[in-house]
């Protein structure tokens, strides 16, 4: 079984982001970039499926600027076999990402696409579901467990209030939640080996996809700040404040 794993280059999760002073967006100059954490989990899961003998080939895909090559090299160092960069400087929206991925699925014919449930920059949580729709495939979103069950996949999903298990016909799309696995660190020899693995580059137009945004960002602002509160000296004062000042208990 061939697996396609889309990965995204985003602001590193440890970076405290700043809104640009002209409110046009987020300050990205000289900011550390990394693979989106949910995508790392997706790569790890694909590699584990290969180690179990279920997957035969892992193709990592990224859609983004030239520097997204680094993100793909990380995926290759973790264990992906080859990579495809769909290069564009446009901030591609989830629906257009899904259309690009569909075109690649049509070319590469994987049985499974496994990707992060959301990116930590856009927080959209749309791409996997949209790709499944365009392909007419089943979807196992927010997965915390992926098991092969005969010809199907059994997916345990994180839902409000607990867990749910679904049976999905292959081919299908799976999106990863945080607890699915703990991604490995690439070893130095594997990082060196990854440099030799094939990485193809193409443009969205090569796949016949129009990436013109349909949503215009008019303004980006900081969240409203909470005004600083007070420290109370003990539980008695706390209870008094909650009863008589805040009137919440």
């Amino acid at each position: 079984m061939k697996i396609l794993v889309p990965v995204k280059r985003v602001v590193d999760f440890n970076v405290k982001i700043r809104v640009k002073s002209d409110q046009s967006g987020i300050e990205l100059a000289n900011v550390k970039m990394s693979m989106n954490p949910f995508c790392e989990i997706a790569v790890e899961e694909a590699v584990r499926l290969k180690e179990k003998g279920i997957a035969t080939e892992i193709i990592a895909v990224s859609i983004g600027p030239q520097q997204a090559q680094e993100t793909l090299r990380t995926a290759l160092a973790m264990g992906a076999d080859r990579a495809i960069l769909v290069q564009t400087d446009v901030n591609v929206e989830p629906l257009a990402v899904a259309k690009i991925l569909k075109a690649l699925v049509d070319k590469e014919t994987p049985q499974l696409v496994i990707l992060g449930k959301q990116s930590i920059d856009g927080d959209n949580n749309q791409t996997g579901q949209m790709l499944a729709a365009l392909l007419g495939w089943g979807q196992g979103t927010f997965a915390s467990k992926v098991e092969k069950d005969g010809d199907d996949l059994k997916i345990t999903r994180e839902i409000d209030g607990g867990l749910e298990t679904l049976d999905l016909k292959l081919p299908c799309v799976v999106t990863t939640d945080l607890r699915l696995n703990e991604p490995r660190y690439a070893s130095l020899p594997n990082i060196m080996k990854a440099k030799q693995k094939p990485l193809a580059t193409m443009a969205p137009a090569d796949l016949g996809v129009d990436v013109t945004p349909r949503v215009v960002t008019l303004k980006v602002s900081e969240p409203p700040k909470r005004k600083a509160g007070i420290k109370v000296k003990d539980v008695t004062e706390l209870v008094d404040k909650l009863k008589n000042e805040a009137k919440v208990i």
Partner: protein
Amino acid sequence: MATVLLIAEHDNAKLKPATLNSMTAAKKIGDVDVLVAGQGCAAVADEAAKIDGVKKVLLADDASYGHFLAENLAALVAKLGANYGYVLAPSTTTGKNMLPRAAALLDMQMLSDVSGIENADTFVRPFYAGNAFATVQSKDKIKVMTIRTTAFDPATAAGGSATVEKVESAGDAGLSSFVSQQLTKSERPELTAARVVVSGGRGMGSGENFKLIDALADKLDAAVGASRAAVDAGFVPNDYQVGQTGKVVAPDLYIAIGISGAIQHLAGMKDSKVIVAINKDPDAPIFQVADYGLVQDLFVALPELTKAV
């Protein structure tokens, strides 16, 4: 014909509160029809018909919707939604799972987690884990949006008298099937709907010690939450998690105990009306968002607080 189609969130027996919050957002846009899709859910449709302001309830009662499988629901929502200017669902795991699929079937770029409605085509939504808010204008013909429920007050559940109209099922796509569900059973109010939430963090030290949190929650009729650190440490199940990758809550009172206050956690609770933090570390970031902070060992403060309220 109304302008907005709102997808109701329910469990086939009762309407979930998230529907009422989303209704408030929907009413700001225009007239609202509500879709109740499920199995044996006629009572839910009657409940939805009573929500103040609903024009019409569409009831799709069919076995293929019994477990809210995205493949089946999205096909129905796309079919019905094509006749509306707006298709909305609460930003719950059900809504997040189903609505992007429906949006793609309609060839519309969806907006996730909308927290503000500026005008007919301009909306506000958080991104970067709630550390920034974008004001965005959609050029698409149908605006497909999930609604951040904590950003809108619930609509009145009574006073309406909408008609209920049965709609045909779009059938079973045959792509997925339900196997099982393990829901955390609790007598307490639901985390996202509770008036008071008591949350514990890594400082609790063990799952056993969460009994102290439970005791306070029982006295305050509160829901129990946790930070990601407490969940990752295995103290409590993952559906307790409050934060950007867990649940977003905005109760009247949020009590954070032994929680340091990582950005991830703050994103899930900083819209609470009153925040109390108890932590022995005076430099914990949680104190920067707390209205009332108590620097004390939680194992001293917590039992005392439980006794005092």
